[in-house]
């Protein structure tokens, strides 16, 4: 009988990082080199060029540039999170702006309380509460004056919301566009909720006019650069985390779910748990990005939750190339640099450009910029 004869191996399979999972094997040596160079630029060169190099010098980086790059790195983290769920697991979320905003609001609560009595009304309460004639903080503001508690909220609020929502959605096997539409409705509902003054988050003005973070003045150049470096470190960290996940067996199960979910089920994996894992993780990463974003740009308001914002995240990822890790980072950078150029130079044309991007990328560039790059060598 030919009962599965044991044969000598005839090849060495490429199975990604199935083996040890040790840090050095996470990326190829070349990728490590690029990553290291990026880390040096972002963590050393940029801070020095901004803080040390005098303003007149050709090597000086303006505050504007630093803030812009910091902002774009936050977007890149969001695009990366989007890629984990969409590019790898095939689930298109049109509600990721919500998780980003919730992380931002959680951080914003801490920043609002750090204003102390320096607000317009010189009150212990934030100005908008004074304006609404509130006498005390609502219960959900308790402890938000402690940084670590706020930091916990940054992770927990998007995480728990995503977990609960995802559990119900994935359990009833809502997939594809239905899932996308429902997530869009979710962020829309939250936007309406946060627009209300009574909700307790400053209504349509949201939070702004922050004064300090952890005791440091928030507009000081050093604080700004510290936040920038933190964001850069987070971006690099999440890139490595993403790499560890997508090269693990779990990462391969995710891709398998994307390509043939029923086969995954009949192979004995319950897709619910896997989807929930990557969905919740993705939401948490978004929340952290939001928390890094708010102190840098100095404002958070409900428009961050608008469906249009969330769908734009998808286009960053698509432009860069979903299903790759570097793609979303590149995409977020390209689209947002384009946006900030256009909105200054030719504001009325930006929507045309963005609209065309959506169309052209889906029609002609399904694998994004990274796809172009990958095709050339082969």
């Amino acid at each position: 009988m030919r009962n599965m004869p044991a044969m000598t191996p005839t090849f060495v399979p490429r199975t990604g990082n199935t083996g040890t999972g040790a840090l050095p094997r996470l990326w190829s040596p070349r990728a490590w080199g690029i990553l290291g160079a990026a880390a040096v630029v972002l963590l050393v060169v940029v801070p020095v060029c901004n803080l040390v190099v005098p303003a007149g010098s050709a090597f000086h980086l303006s505050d504007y540039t630093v803030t812009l790059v910091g902002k774009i790195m936050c977007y890149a983290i969001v695009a990366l999170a989007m890629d984990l769920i969409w590019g790898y697991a095939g689930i298109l979320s049109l509600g990721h702006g919500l998780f980003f905003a919730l992380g931002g609001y959680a951080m914003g609560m801490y920043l609002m309380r750090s204003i102390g009595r320096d607000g317009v009304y010189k009150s212990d309460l934030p100005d908008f509460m004074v304006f609404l004639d509130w006498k005390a903080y609502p219960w959900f503001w308790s402890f938000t004056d402690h940084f670590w508690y706020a930091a916990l909220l940054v992770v927990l609020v998007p995480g728990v919301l995503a977990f609960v929502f995802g559990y119900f959605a994935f359990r009833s096997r809502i997939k594809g566009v239905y899932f996308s539409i429902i997530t869009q409705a979710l962020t829309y509902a939250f936007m309406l909720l946060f627009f209300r003054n009574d909700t307790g988050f400053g209504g349509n003005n949201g939070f702004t006019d922050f004064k300090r973070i952890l005791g440091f003045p928030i507009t000081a150049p050093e604080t700004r650069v510290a936040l920038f470096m933190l964001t850069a470190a987070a971006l690099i960290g999440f890139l490595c985390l993403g790499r560890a996940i997508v090269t693990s067996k779990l990462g391969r199960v995710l891709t398998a779910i994307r390509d043939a979910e029923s086969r995954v089920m009949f192979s004995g994996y319950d897709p619910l748990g896997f989807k929930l894992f990557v969905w919740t993780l993705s939401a948490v990463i978004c929340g952290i990005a939001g928390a890094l974003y708010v102190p840098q740009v100095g404002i958070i308001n409900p428009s961050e939750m608008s469906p249009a914002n969330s769908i734009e995240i998808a286009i960053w990822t698509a432009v860069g190339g979903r299903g790759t890790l570097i793609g979303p980072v590149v995409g977020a950078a390209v689209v947002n640099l384009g946006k900030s150029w256009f909105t200054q130079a030719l504001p009325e044309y930006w929507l045309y450009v963005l609209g065309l991007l959506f169309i052209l990328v889906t029609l002609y560039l399904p694998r994004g910029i990274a796809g172009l790059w990958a095709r050339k060598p082969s």
Partner: protein
Amino acid sequence: MMNLAVYAELKAREGPTPSKATGISDGHVVTPGVDISHGAILYLDSVSVSFDGFNALNDLSLVVDAGELRCVIGPNGAGKTTMMDVITGKTRPDAGTAYFGQTIDLTRLSEPEIAGIGIGRKFQKPTVFTDHTVFENLELARKADKRVWPTLTAKLDSAAYDRILANLETIHLAPEAKRQAGLLSHGQKQWLEIGMLLMQEPQLLLLDEPVAGMTDDETMRSAELFLSLAGKYTLVVVEHDMDFVAKIADRVTVLHEGHVLAEGSMQQVQRNEQVIEVFLGR
């Protein structure tokens, strides 16, 4: 639980249980989960399924013995695939019961749970993970702890690695190991899917039209493979290719309009008047 009287009656109708099954029950097929002490591994009792008023399965009863190689034939739309859907938990029966061994009620389990207790299924349309290599396909299917955390931290040890290589030889895909599964031919995908089933080490294999799209030569090789698997595993094979069925079947079940029309050896079935009328006679 299945009505034992019904079971006894079915058995009586079928004649003596093939000796293979009794030889199996004390062998290595027995795993803690499945109780096959009565010789049979799968019981379907008066299962009915309807889609918007159309009866895809109509009072279907079927018993498969452990270690048996059962072929199920029937015209298009007879309900063969739907029967597999019921067994694997994809479709819930409107009436009737489905038991795996003496104790496991399949109608209460989800698809992954059913796969986990040892039922593997090959789809009518070959379904593999197109973006993964052949090797990775097998690796993912391999029997392992398939919960989220263990999967995240899973490592491929050398024993598992060897098993995958052995499997690659069995399904004649060793040269393709590094290719993307999406690039394989239809027949190769069929083989790969069978290979993935074997990696799951199931007790019961449900194969829906496994040789469709294979060359004659490949069909012969699958016949050999299935025969070699019988006894060690229980196989339920749905096929339209009568020569293939004649070659491999211990026993054949004929389905028609969601109901068992006849059951017995290939010769018995071929002599059955009704069967000739609805199916073979065409």
